[in-house]
Each structure stands twice: as structure tokens, then as C-alpha cells.
């Protein structure tokens, strides 16, 4: 469903170009959930942005749902791939109601049954009629993230890209959103590519996990292997160690 072949992504051109992702190859079959972990600046969000067509890639091939894509996408290609961003406070238009936010993609893609789609999308993410005419500032963080997910789902995408979808949320709300994503994936047969710095969150939702460091995909492993510490790359080990939390004995050494 998602195939990246030797993809290199750079910001800027010429001698001042910064190569953010180098020679990355990754395949995600239909219906699978794959996670990308790594620290800030490792290039994991850049990969998502290139797949979503928000930034161009400098070299290599990106194939989505069997079609080789470029930065310039047809409307149909854009409909296939939708993205949910980290910060639900920043990704919703502050002056538009939930209804307007959800109506926009329907209008852009000239879809029929707009009314029915909005009602259904809200119901699917667990929001009621009372939320439909509210502005983002009248919603909690978790509710806003639900709106962002509804906005992505309303186009019936086959691929959902998730960029740290729960890291701005409280633990109890994070659990609700993770459960929602798992259910939506099951119900719609979605293919997920998710980025997070939290290994436990990634391992909860994804079968396979790619580890990125300095723009390189250093290792592809599984949630099970991570849990049993059966990883090969040094960087992955370090990540696992930090993820285990603060440990006085190791911190002192």
C-alpha cells in the first residue's frame, strides 16, 4: 500500500541543501500498521510529510496504493492519503466551527451526501451533535484530536499518516484516542504509518517498527522484538534504555 524505494528528502537546493532523509526504503502492505521512532531531527516526520505530498522528495520513488506519486498529486491521489498532526491546538482553524472544518474536504473533493458524511464522521470518532457547531477553543484537547481524525476519515482514505497523534494529550485521553485509532483501522481496513517518540505507544498500535537516526532508517524490528530487547542496532538499544525511564543506577554510571 505504501512503498518507499531509496527515497532521499532534502530541504533547500544546491550547496545549502539539508538532507533530512537519506536512501530510505520501506514497504507497508495493505492493512498493516508500521511505526517510526527516533529523536527530533531524525527525519521521521519528514518521511510522513513527503508521503502526504506536503514536501517534494529529491530522489527515489514513492508508490501509494499502486500508483507512483510525485509532489503534484491529483485530487484522487490526495484523497487516498490523509494525515493527522500532533498538535490538535494548531491543526484546526480557530475561526471555523467543527461543521465548517469537516465540510471543507467534502467540498474540495466534490463528494456527494455532505450532510450524511459529516454526521457519520462525527459519530465514528465518538463526538455527538452537540459538538458539531462548536469552535475548536470550545473543545478539550482529546475532542480536538477526534475532530482532526474525523477530518481525515471523511474522505475515506486508505492510508492514514499519524504524526505523534497522542503526545499532546493526557494519559487517560491518550488511551481513548489509541483505542479509537485501533477500532477505525479494523473497521476501515486502514493502512497506518505512525510516528512517535514513545515506544510503548508505537508498540501498542503497530506490528513493525522502523528506527530512525540522523535521517537514516537504521533498523526495522517488531513490537515483540522490542519488548524482549532482541534488537540489533546500538541506537535502538539506547532508545529502549531511555524509554525504560529514569534509573538511578544507570544514570550514575
Amino acid at each position, binding site marked *: 500500500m505504501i512503498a518507499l524505494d531509496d527515497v532521499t528528502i532534502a530541504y533547500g537546493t544546491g550547496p545549502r541543501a539539508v538532507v533530512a532523509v537519506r536512501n530510505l526504503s520501506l514497504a507497508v502492505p495493505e492493512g498493516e500498521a508500521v511505526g517510526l521512532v527516533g*529523536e*527530533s531531527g531524525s527525519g521521521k516526520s519528514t518521511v510522513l510529510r513527503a508521503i502526504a505530498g506536503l514536501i517534494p522528495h529529491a530522489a527515489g520513488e514513492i508508490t501509494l496504493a499502486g500508483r507512483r506519486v510525485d509532489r503534484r498529486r491529483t485530487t484522487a491521489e490526495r484523497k487516498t492519503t490523509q494525515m493527522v498532526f500532533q498538535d490538535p491546538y494548531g491543526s484546526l482553524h480557530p475561526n471555523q466551527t467543527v461543521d465548517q472544518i469537516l465540510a471543507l474536504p467534502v467540498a474540495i473533493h466534490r463528494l456527494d451526501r455532505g450532510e450524511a458524511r459529516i454526521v457519520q464522521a462525527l459519530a465514528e470518532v465518538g463526538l455527538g451533535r452537540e459538538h458539531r457547531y462548536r469552535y475548536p477553543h470550545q473543545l478539550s*484537547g482529546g475532542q480536538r484530536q477526534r475532530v482532526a481524525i474525523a477530518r481525515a476519515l471523511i474522505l475515506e482514505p486508505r492510508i492514514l499518516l499519524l504524526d505523534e497523534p497522542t503526545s499532546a494529550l*493526557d*494519559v*487517560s485521553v*491518550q*488511551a*481513548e484516542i*489509541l*483505542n479509537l485509532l*485501533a477500532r477505525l483501522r479494523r473497521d476501515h481496513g486502514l493502512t497506518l504509518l505512525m510516528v512517535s*517518540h*514513545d*515506544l*510503548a*505507544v508505537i*508498540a*501498542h498500535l503497530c506490528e513493525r517498527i522502523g528506527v530512525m537516526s540522523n535521517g537514516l532508517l537504521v533498523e526495522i524490528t517488531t*513490537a515483540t522484538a*522490542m*519488548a*524482549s530487547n532482541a534488537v540489533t542496532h546500538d541506537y535502538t538499544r*539506547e*532508545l529502549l*534504555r*531511555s*524509554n525504560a*525511564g*529514569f*534509573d*538511578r543506577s544507570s*544514570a*550514575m554510571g
Partner: protein
Amino acid sequence: MSETLLAVRNLRVTYPGDDGEVRAVRNVSFTLGRERLGIVGESGSGKSTTGRAIMGLVGRPGRIEADELRLGDTDLRGLSERGFRKLRGRRIAMVLQDPKYSLDPVMSVGQQIAETHRSHLRSTQRDARRAALEMLQAVHIRDPERVYTMYPHQISGGMGQRVMIAMMLIAGPDILIADEPTSALDVTVQTQVLAILDELVRRRGMGLILISHNLHLVSAFCDRVLVMYGGQVLETCAAGKLAEARHPYTRGLLAALPRLGHRRAELPQLQRDPAWMADTA
């Protein structure tokens, strides 16, 4: 139990609202010795407001009241802004979440650290500079001379937070309040910053209040943990024994955390009981 550095009894912070007063913090009591105390809770639980109340940083129209609020032998109730300014930095200091917003963007980091030293200890420029360089070394910054002259936008988040810690500790306070000190940092850097904090607080025999939403972090780092909800302390646990927490809220939060190697089809969602909002005292 060591001497009491800070005593808080029945702390209340209220804000006037449209429908009567909003009680952001209520019935909060604890004492702090030379130890690490953690305060955990979700957004809006009152954990940060508690920290700010101790620092005298609750602005109007918010109101701080307490039956007892004592720092050593100083009564903090009704202390003037002038009085607080003498205490802040010198006897009690605070590290905030994001160094990007808490450092002065137009002053080199070294000067900022030295300024604290000069204003509290009335030291000469040269002494303050030397102390600032030593402090940068103490927070494990490799090339203090070079970093001294750098501006906040030129340093990374982890380095920024170490600079913050250096600035907060330079005047030798007895108590450090760290409000989400590592939440804006990468996981790999978080551990380093915590280790530095731990080392300095131990070596100087300070009292530390660590405020965080991260249960695991707090339980690994602190000696004692207060769990806050709706402005109140619901439960106090010995940190290593968080797994044995009794309150349904604490247990619910722990259960809702995804864990590596314990994959569940569905995470148990927290069911909030209205009874948790009832006054505990």
C-alpha cells in the same frame, strides 16, 4: 525524617469565575525535607498551580490562602512581592517546562546565569562570571567558555534546560521546584537532564519538588509521590510502590498507559467517579 524545609497545610488557590469561585487547589497539605517529592496529575489537576503558589506566582485575581505556608522560618502567607523577590532564586527556585520560553532571548546564557549570582550575592562581575562557568561545568556542559557567550536560540533544548538548572542553582537555594522539566525534550536527552538534576540535588542536600504528568518518571525519580486530581491530593505513595497504589484514579491512570511487551487489544479507559471531586478534608 530530616528537618522540614517547607510546610504546607490546607493550601487553597481560588480564582473568581462567572459561576462563583473556581477552586484550582484545595485542601493540599504536605511537608518537604531534604528529599525528592513528586506531584503527578493530568492537565487541570492543580499540580502546577500548587508549585506557583509556593513561589508566590499566582497573579491577581487569583488568591492564595493556607493555614500554614512556611519556608524554613519564613511565613509565606501575605508576603509582599518584594519579600518574595528576595526568596526566589536564593532560597527557592523553579525550573519550567520549556527553556525556549524561559530564557531571555537577547542575553547570552552565561550573562543570564551570572546575573542571578550578582543580584542575589552582590558579587563582582568577575566572581559572577567564574561562578557561572563553574555552574555550567557542574551541569555537564563540555565547553563552558564557549557556551557562556551563546544565545538561547543557538543551543539545543537539552542544553537549554541544563542552562536553566545552572541558573536556578547558582544562588544555592534550599528547594528546587521543577515543573515538567523534561517534557519538551527528547527521550534520550530526558534521562541525561534528570541524572544531572538528581546528582546536584543530592550533592547539595536540597529539597526537590518534581511536577509531572508522567507517572513512571516520577515514581522512578522521587522518594514520595502526591497524586493530584481536581485540585486535591487524592493519594500519597512511596515512589517505588506506585504499582501498589490504592486509589481507583491512580490505578486507572496506570492501567491506561500502554506498556512495551504487554500488548492489549484495548487499553482500559479511565472512568471518572464524581466522588473523587468531593472535598477530602
